[in-house]
């Protein structure tokens, strides 16, 4: 017997989808059962992750990609992730501003998500939100994040194609971007390429990618680097073409690699889920009972050390 919520999501009911994503984000316990049921309807959408530092033009690029995909009659879901303020827990979610023109298009569903801090489980809730949009029947799902936190890097890593956006003069910033971001990029875009230094950034990127040639060896995908001016729709069609090339590569690359990649994805997802589940269970129990705060006090007072405190807190919960 299919639950009401699942039925509505599959039918593409926008309000049901919106509420379900909120329930996921708010960690409503009942949502788990719905997601279990929904999983059977996922796996059809193609997921594109887009990341880069603030101000490089990610939202503008997403807006343009959506426009191009809509011209091809493809439906699109967008998840735009913005950081939560560590001080107040609040967030300003402003990515929609650049995507206004799609508001009235029924083939497009745009949702903003806040990172909600360390214990928010960004990776997992975004993963679940992707599943929801997938089950809703969207052909493409675009996930946009600021690639500075590990969580955010993980989010795009879970995409089929990961696009990294930089702007001229960002050489050092690329280095400074979260370790591993260059390794996970399938396509690199130098946006605002009318600015000085675009070619320099391009060659710097090329060098960095060549340095990791081991990964990009014979017969493997070689990440293209493209110049772009997303705001003027220059280079966007080409970028999309590379995304399609990468998609074809994934589908064709002697089956084996595709299978390995899928398996790796499932492995990471499951690991993430187990971690999230444990943290949620154990951590919320510890904070609610006050044990956690007591342990903090005892460390501060010098009566205990973090290692023993951790043992004392966690071991009784997991030693069965």
């Amino acid at each position, binding site marked *: 017997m299919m639950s009401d919520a699942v039925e509505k999501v599959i039918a593409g009911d*926008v309000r049901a989808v919106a509420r379900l994503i909120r329930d996921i984000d708010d960690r409503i316990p009942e949502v788990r059962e719905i997601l279990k049921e929904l999983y059977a309807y996922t796996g059809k959408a193609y997921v594109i992750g887009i990341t880069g530092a603030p101000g490089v033009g990610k939202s503008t690029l997403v807006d343009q990609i959506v426009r191009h995909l809509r011209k091809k009659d493809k439906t699109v879901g967008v998840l735009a992730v913005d950081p939560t303020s560590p001080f*107040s827990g*609040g967030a*300003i*979610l402003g990515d929609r501003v*650049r995507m*206004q023109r799609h*508001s*009235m298009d029924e083939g497009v569903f745009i949702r903003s998500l806040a990172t909600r801090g360390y214990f928010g489980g960004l990776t997992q809730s975004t993963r679940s939100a992707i599943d929801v949009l997938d089950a809703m029947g969207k052909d493409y799902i675009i996930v946009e994040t600021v690639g500075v936190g590990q969580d955010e890097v993980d989010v795009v890593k879970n995409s089929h194609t990961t696009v990294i956006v930089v702007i001229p003069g960002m050489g050092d910033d690329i280095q400074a971007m979260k370790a591993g971001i260059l390794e996970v990029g399938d396509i690199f875009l130098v946006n605002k390429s009318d600015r000085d230094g675009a070619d320099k950034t391009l060659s710097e990127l090329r060098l960095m990618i060549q340095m990791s040639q081991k990964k990009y060896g014979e017969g493997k995908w070689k990440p293209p680097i493209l110049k772009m001016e997303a705001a003027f729709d220059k280079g966007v069609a080409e970028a999309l073409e590379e995304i399609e090339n990468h998609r074809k590569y994934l589908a064709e690359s002697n089956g084996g690699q595709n299978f390995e990649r899928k398996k790796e994805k499932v492995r990471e997802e499951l690991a993430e889920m187990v971690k999230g589940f444990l943290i949620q269970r154990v951590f919320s129990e510890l904070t609610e009972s006050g044990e956690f705060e007591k342990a903090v006090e005892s460390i501060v007072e010098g009566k205990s050390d973090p290692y023993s405190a951790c043992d004392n807190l966690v071991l009784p919960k997991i030693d069965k």
Partner: protein
Amino acid sequence: MVAKLGLDGHDRGAKIIARAYRDAGFEVVYSGLHQTPEEIVQAAIQEDVDMIGLSSLAGAHMYLFPRVLEILNENGVNEIVVCGGGIIPEEDIPKLKKLGVKEVFKPGSLLEDIVKWVEENVKPRGETN
């Protein structure tokens, strides 16, 4: 969601309000300028917001604010609270409230009062007090 409607191009106030909500721990979706009431409502539905704050400094509030309420109604959305703020003449406020705008904040309203009003009057997930 903090929203700007129509031709009104002044969004400094809206941005300050958005910032105040964020600093009070809210997640705030900002719509950007020049939105139609239809666009605002679709965005609010997709984002599943609890409240829409409409900012108006160009005098079209008597048409645009009620339009937002109308379209919400047409879409069967009754649980989203709609508030307004900006340059709104005193005599319009009772009329707007009668049409369903829950509260109107005039120039000079303190940010902490605006935030406090929301904390006290808007319950998450459409729950009623």
